[in-house]
């Protein structure tokens, strides 16, 4: 059976709302409009306006209200129409949500989920295309999840909603309409994925490729191409950016001895840098080649289609980097 990511998210919301009356949903256009990207479709009708709340376009205000509701024991799910707008409310995510359990020595826990599409969509320009994975996962007190498939979307969102800590849940608009095969287990309402665990999407021997969100699909495509050239790539779907599954990553690199990191976000202080550091810290002696980093270009996102394509990783970038790691690449191109 196949399931769209949109449906996976919607069903996860639905099931967790039905399981726990303390779960409620708030955000811009989540109710009557059925969600800007229709993730919350049908939920207002099913759970009513007390549990599905349309907010004004005032992220700081409604996020603060969500966090305050969590202080008093509710389990809010706050939708950002896109994560770009979470910057308006980022102080509440960091200072009000992430740090309060610590500052209060465990008195005030903050069981809340911040979710919405993150990173680059198509043709939406510099202000609407940023990836916030590295930023949020920088901060202790937060958990940061980023699903790729329908299985991820269902399992991780359900885990996030049930979790007693603040979770930042980074979706990808371009995946919403993608379908993935799902097992009966995944469709069961008890299904849940562990937070902090990566998934090996494809086993391989020669090189490890880490990726999250949309880039997992690209990494899998790259692995397919590489396999035709005799390179067996292991693809790790990170799923959880914080906690980062250092154990799975290191175990894989100890096996393959080579690593390519893939992310759509800006490179500096990005997810790839942290993964490289983690491997250098724990498995330095196993590395047979420099870690290769594939990332978003180090520029604001341009609008023009040709520039935009250059600004985000393509499958061929991953293939090329993997070959380099395996010493099978053509010589380096000249500097532009």
């Amino acid at each position, binding site marked *: 059976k196949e399931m769209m990511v949109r449906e996976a998210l919607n069903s996860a919301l639905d099931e967790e709302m039905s399981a726990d009356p303390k779960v409620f949903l708030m955000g*811009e*256009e989540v109710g*009557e*409009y059925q969600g*800007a990207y229709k993730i919350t479709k049908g939920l207002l009708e099913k759970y009513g306006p007390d549990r599905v709340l*349309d907010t*004004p*376009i*005032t992220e*700081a*205000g409604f996020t603060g209200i969500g966090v305050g509701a969590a202080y008093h024991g509710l389990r809010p799910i706050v939708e950002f129409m896109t994560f*770009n*707008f979470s910057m*308006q409310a980022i102080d509440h995510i960091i200072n009000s949500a992430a740090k309060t359990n610590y500052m209060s020595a465990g008195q005030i826990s903050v069981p809340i989920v911040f979710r919405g599409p993150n990173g680059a*969509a*198509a*043709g*939406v*320009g*510099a*202000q*609407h295309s940023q990836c916030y994975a590295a930023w949020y996962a920088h901060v202790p007190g937060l958990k940061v999840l980023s699903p790729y498939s329908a299985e991820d979307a269902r399992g991780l969102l359900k885990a996030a909603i049930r979790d007693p800590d603040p979770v930042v849940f980074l979706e990808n608009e371009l995946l919403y309409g993608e379908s993935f095969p799902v097992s009966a287990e995944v469709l069961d309402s008890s299904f849940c994925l562990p937070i902090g665990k990566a998934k090996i999407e494809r086993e391989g021997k020669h090189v490890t490729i880490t990726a999250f969100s949309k880039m997992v699909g690209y990494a899998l495509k790259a692995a397919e191409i590489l396999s035709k050239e005799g390179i067996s790539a292991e693809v790790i779907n990170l799923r959880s950016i914080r906690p980062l599954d250092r154990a799975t990553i290191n175990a894989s690199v100890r096996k393959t001895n080579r690593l390519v990191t893939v992310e759509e976000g800006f*490179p500096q202080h990005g997810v790839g840098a942290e993964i490289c550091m983690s491997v250098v810290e724990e498995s330095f002696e196993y590395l047979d080649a420099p870690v*290769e*980093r*594939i*990332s*978003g*270009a*180090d*520029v*604001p996102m*341009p*609008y*023009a*289609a*040709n*520039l935009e394509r*250059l*600004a*985000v*990783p*393509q499958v061929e*970038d991953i293939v*090329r*980097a993997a070959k*380099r790691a395996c010493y099978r690449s053509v010589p*380096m*191109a000249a*500097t*532009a």
Partner: protein
Amino acid sequence: FSSDQTLTIETSVPFTGHKIEPPSRSVDTSPAELLSFFRDMSLMRRMEIAADSLYKAKLIRGFCHLYDGQEAAAVGMEAAITKKDSIITAYRDHCTFLARGGTLVEAFAELMGRRNGCSDGKGGSMHFYKKDARFYGGHGIVGAQVPLGCGVAFAHKYLKEGAVTFALYGDGAANQGQLFEALNISALWDLPVILICENNHYGMGTAEWRAAKSPAYYKRGDYVPGLKVDGMDVLAVKQACKFAKEHALANGPIILEMDTYRYHGHSMSDPGSTYRTRDEISGVRQERDPIERVRKLILAHELATASELKDTEKEVRKEVDDAIAQAKESPMPDPSELFTNVYVKGFGVESFGADRKEVKAVLP
């Protein structure tokens, strides 16, 4: 008649003031001005309709927010001010760009992500600018353009330019906290800024009263004066903007609420018909359309014949078609543009593409 003879015309409805005596309903205009209003608004209307088609033909990507229905606001405001005054608005920015003197080709080329676009194809629909006419965008973050506009006004005052800034925002944006912060500072510092709330009654799919406990946006400045204006009446808009400019130069900020309407959905993904009735839309089109209002005035005052106006509309159509053809000829930006304009001064450091060992550039 002489094209610059003075005509005095009553606005459709009186202005309503908040903490201020409203201006007179009698607006001075001229045959030439009315004809240019007709032409300018028709051109804008046509441009937006064409953008809709280009979007459906997949020549425009991503977000695209159309302004048809709201043309009187851009045109009336422009008629009241000069290019020394500044404007900043949100993502629904195509027509403001045109009003400030931008060309159709620049607009369409930008929408299509081409080199000849007003932002060289790098900005896109939401990020039009025209620095030489002091048009500061084109801003994609709801409400954020308001403090920015107050900052431009600060610069006008600092430089003693005697100019004002118009900062436009929607009814949805009107609840944003940073607007209240910026307004307080502007009032404390007497900044020459006019906040214009283009109240088209919906923020995306949310009716104004669902987003605002008090949808009387001209009063939302509380201690700052405000004026409610029929934003479908280009003459009322002109009158109000003139009045507001004088006020702002002498006394600091003022809010104008323009009662207006968008015919299209919020953006191209929104049919615009789930949260409002078709009757509501057609009612506005029939009774309040800003172009039709001017057409009627022109005909009533016999400044042109119906068929002359039809000719204008045909010209405008052709202008738009020609511009689109030209814009389509414009090439995509050169790939090297990926790395330009990240900084004004790049210090010769390296910047990287997705695969840094394959694509990098030295920043100028």
